[in-house]
């Protein structure tokens, strides 16, 4: 970041891992995503915020291949890709951690971490290898809250479950981990634990998208904040350059009444003009 900027074009180190340009998504007549731009970089936590119904989940489902975008450019590692299934996204190193419905209570931690991608030898499950790798992964994330990887997930606390779900997402050489409201159901101490883990993922070199409604969490852990407002990307700003109040204002009104933050790429124009100008691209229609 402190590198002297060479004056012959952009540096490759700053190339985003994931870059969305003008993506759209409609459900029937309802336009849920309108010309959304988003940049996600390796080693950074990019927070995705916005009011209920702003389109956050729709956006990450498109990134994860659960549904496809109707239009726009999806660039990953500098190349334009067309992702139509979760498997395809997984193959690119994209993993999603869902807030709920992600773990089987009746299986233990190892079994959950490898679910759907079990390691087998000669057709039979290789439990020893899976247990070893689960231990290594948890150790790599400095997770000390889980005593035995052979306990059933039903016996874990909310924070521990979230930890298992996150650890599971980094087992597979993933590059981009998407977390949908990972702390929504957690108490103070457990939220702290999970946020530390999220930070560690980025510090280990992964790109992280964090969806959250909690501005304290976002400001604590994020490098970048992307604000969705009514299906448009209001702005994507450096987290250090905005205040709590400014983020809340962006979420509720889609723009800032006070001085715009210097690092803001762009702020959406007023609703009435209906010409969503986002980032550096102009709305053609």
């Amino acid at each position, binding site marked *: 970041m402190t590198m002297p900027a060479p004056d012959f074009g952009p540096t490759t180190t700053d190339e985003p891992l994931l870059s969305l340009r003008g993506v759209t998504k409609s459900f029937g007549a309802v336009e849920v995503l309108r010309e959304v731009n988003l940049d996600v970089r390796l080693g950074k936590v990019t927070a995705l915020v916005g009011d209920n119904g702003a389109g956050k989940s729709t956006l990450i489902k498109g990134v994860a291949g659960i549904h496809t975008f109707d239009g726009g450019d999806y660039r990953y590692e500098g190349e334009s890709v067309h992702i139509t299934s979760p498997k395809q996204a997984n193959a690119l190193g994209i993993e999603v951690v869902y807030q709920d419905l992600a773990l089987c209570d009746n299986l233990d931690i190892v079994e959950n971490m490898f679910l759907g991608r079990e390691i087998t030898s000669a057709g*039979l499950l290789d439990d020893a290898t899976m247990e070893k790798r689960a231990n290594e992964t948890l150790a790599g994330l400095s997770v000390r809250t889980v005593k035995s990887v052979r306990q059933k997930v039903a016996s874990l606390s909310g924070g521990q479950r979230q930890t298992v779900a996150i650890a599971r997402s980094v087992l597979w050489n993933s590059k981009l981990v998407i977390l949908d409201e990972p702390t929504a159901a957690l108490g103070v101490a457990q939220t702290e634990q999970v946020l530390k883990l999220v930070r560690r993922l980025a510090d280990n070199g992964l790109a992280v998208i964090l969806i959250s409604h909690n501005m304290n969490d976002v400001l604590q852990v994020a490098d970048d904040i992307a604000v969705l407002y009514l299906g448009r990307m209001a702005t994507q700003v450096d987290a250090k350059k905005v205040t709590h109040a400014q983020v809340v204002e962006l979420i509720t009104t889609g723009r800032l009444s006070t001085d715009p933050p210097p690092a803001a790429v762009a702020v959406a124009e007023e609703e009435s003009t209906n010409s969503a100008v986002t980032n550096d691209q102009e709305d053609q229609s």
Partner: protein
Amino acid sequence: MSTMMDKELENAGEVPDNRVTSALSEYFAKVRGGDVGALPAVLGLVVLALVFTALRSETFPTAFNFGNLLNQGAGVIVIAMGLVFVLLLGEIDLSAGYTAGTAGAVLGVAVTTHGWPWWAGVVVCLATGAFIGLIIGLLVARMGIPSFVVTLALFLALQGVLLQVVGEGGQIALTDPTILAVMNKNMPVWLGWTLYVVVIVVYGGLTFRRMVTRRANGLHAERTTVWAFKFASLVILLGIVVYLLSIERSVNPAVTSITGVPVVVPLLLVLLVGTTLLLNRTSFGRHIYAVGGNAEAARRSGINVANIRLACFVICSTMAAVAGIVIGSRDNGITPNTGGGQTLLYAVGAAVIGGTSLFGGKGRTLDAIIGGLVVAIIANGMALLNQPAGVVYFVTGLVLLVAASVDALSRRRTASTGR
């Protein structure tokens, strides 16, 4: 309390200790948390055996009756082992009993009416079961009709098919010696003991090696004392069973001699080993538990939930077809009532009494065998007490209710203790 248990868990990983007490306390913690497993069924088995022994000391604890018990229970046990697969998904197959009857009738028509060799008859019998399972599976997994309704409809439809094939008041006799041998022949005494030694050595060797290598790799391993306790129990228990089956159990030894382990026992053993391997040691089995525990999580993990459901119904019905052979062999033929009456209820009871959860996600085929023995002992003992059929049904119904209550309570306990 919780810190105590945390310590316990910490120790479990690395210390290869022999403290029986901590192993026991770990076990009791599990039971307290609602994970009772096969414990109630094993206790029930012991209590029932003691009660009937006290009430009918001349007839109940005899080698003859012990042999009978296995014969009476085998059909229900095989159906119950198949039912475990659909119960694991939280589904039910009410038609499994008549699937057994229908598949048995197909065997009878092939072998007796058309004179096919026994093995060809067995193939079409199993294929019939698989086909019925495929239909149920397609209707449940692809069309989304609740399995309760689909299999209730098939319960009636297959009863009709069986009646049409066999004819009212009719019977398809089974005379093929190989088919009849399943339930009417015993292995030579020496072969029974050989099988015993093989089972003990293979089981003991595999589990011991697994324990040692896991510990050497620093993985979570069973304590040596626990392993030794389990192994010794198996050696003694199976030893008693084989001994009882090896002594003369004919009522009139001068006329006919009956000794040796019944042929159906190795059949049950093969089914047990096969299904246990499938459920515990393959990805497919793991996915069955996952779908039963949380279908949505399984789907998001890339598991094809519909295919798993389909496969489980096919397995269940195919196992029912095996039961059709077993029951047909026992009764020397197929009647419109084969697999009917209380057969299905007994089979569901066997699985649930053994500890398989009706809510899905929990159960083993071994439990179905233990539960099946409980059901068989009740029916057998009550008959020896000269109780009318009405009382036997009533008591069996009550036992099923008790087992279902234990299941529901342990589930609530699991939820409340977070285990």
